[in-house]
């Protein structure tokens, strides 16, 4: 929105595109998908295409270059207003508010089976938050499984090869299927 090209949201009509604003927003967000350990392992203090720092505001460090790349490529496949609407929708979403401020009430008597999985190094959706959800599900007597997986790959661990995650999801889906009369295949 701080990008003048946003044009109060009318950039499509006016033939503009707030590329810089959206890229910066994505760069900030991207950090939250990774963990401290994963960033250090991947980038550390390595320089980008140079051996010495230039002591300028250029992207001296490899991690800066990486984040810029993430921001720029995101602009190619995402619309700025969609990004705004999605983040706002998440901000305004408050399930407990619809149930007298008590999250557990939202789950009372639900026949749905829940499986909550968290990663130790995820600081975007940390285990403590997942536990709060599990707590509410339990208090609402929902059928819930909860597993925490040890990894240093941060929030994005769910996109990566994580055998324990696969085993848990498979076990959960198989049993949920079996309970509904669907035999697991093979």
């Amino acid at each position: 929105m701080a990008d003048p090209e946003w044009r109060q949201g009318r950039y499509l009509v006016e033939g503009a595109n707030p590329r810089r604003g959206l890229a910066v927003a994505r760069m900030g967000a991207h950090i939250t998908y990774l963990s401290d350990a994963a960033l250090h392992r991947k980038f550390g203090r390595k320089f980008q295409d140079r051996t010495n720092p230039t002591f300028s505001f250029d992207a001296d460090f490899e991690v800066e270059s990486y984040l810029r790349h993430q921001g720029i490529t995101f602009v190619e496949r995402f619309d700025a207003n969609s990004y705004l609407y999605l983040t706002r929708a998440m901000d305004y979403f408050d399930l407990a508010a619809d149930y007298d401020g008590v999250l557990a009430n939202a789950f009372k008597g639900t026949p749905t089976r829940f499986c909550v999985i968290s990663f130790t190094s995820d600081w975007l959706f940390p285990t403590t938050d997942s536990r709060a959800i599990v707590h509410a599900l339990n208090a609402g007597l929902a059928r819930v499984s909860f597993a925490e997986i040890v990894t240093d790959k941060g929030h994005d661990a769910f996109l990566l090869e994580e055998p324990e995650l696969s085993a848990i999801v498979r076990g959960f889906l198989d049993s949920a299927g079996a309970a509904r009369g669907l035999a697991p295949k093979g």
Partner: protein
Amino acid sequence: MLLRPKRDLTMADAARAPDGARFDHRLVAAMVEPRSRVLDVGCGDGELLRLLEQRGVDGRGIELSREGVNECVAKGLAVIQGDADTDLADYPDDAFDYVILSQTLQATRRPREVLEHMLRIGRRAIISFPNFGHWRIRLQLLLNGAMPVTDNLPDSWYDSPNIHFCTIKDFRNLCQVAGAQMEKSVALNPWGRPLRLNAPYWFWNLFGEQAVFLLSRKERKPAIR
């Protein structure tokens, strides 16, 4: 060494029914009415929960160790990571028909509060625990003068997760103070087989290697919370 006969298997492993289930698990499972709701506190690898679900029980579990939890969830069981000492308080009254504590009471920090919460959350509680009054344990302490180590309780005192051992007699006293009504009780020999049912308690306390109690709450609700 005379007091610790070597066996190839641990007794819990040896004590298996033809269907592969542990005898103490089968005993607990037999106390649970079909189609009831059960919470298994300290459910380990989920073996008992699985046995119960095979019998049409709606089972939930709490387990302290992450490995145990993840193994259970991968088996499709409704298990969450949690601590009997702290997390039972989160459950509403009368949420379950049975709350089970299998071989875990002696590892809790506050056994009395755990028992009281179990009786609050569930209509009934089923508790199994190793009997520290077994003659072999008494004899070891008497003769060696050191904390007993047996096949079923193989940890040295400094490594053991078991911080609150009790005898069958001690447990009966706890039931008194916690407002629990004893409905059924069974003592098991070292091979997981029930001892004579009509034996007096002192006999169980001496020869039972573990015990299983089915409890309900007395009319007056325990005064907690």
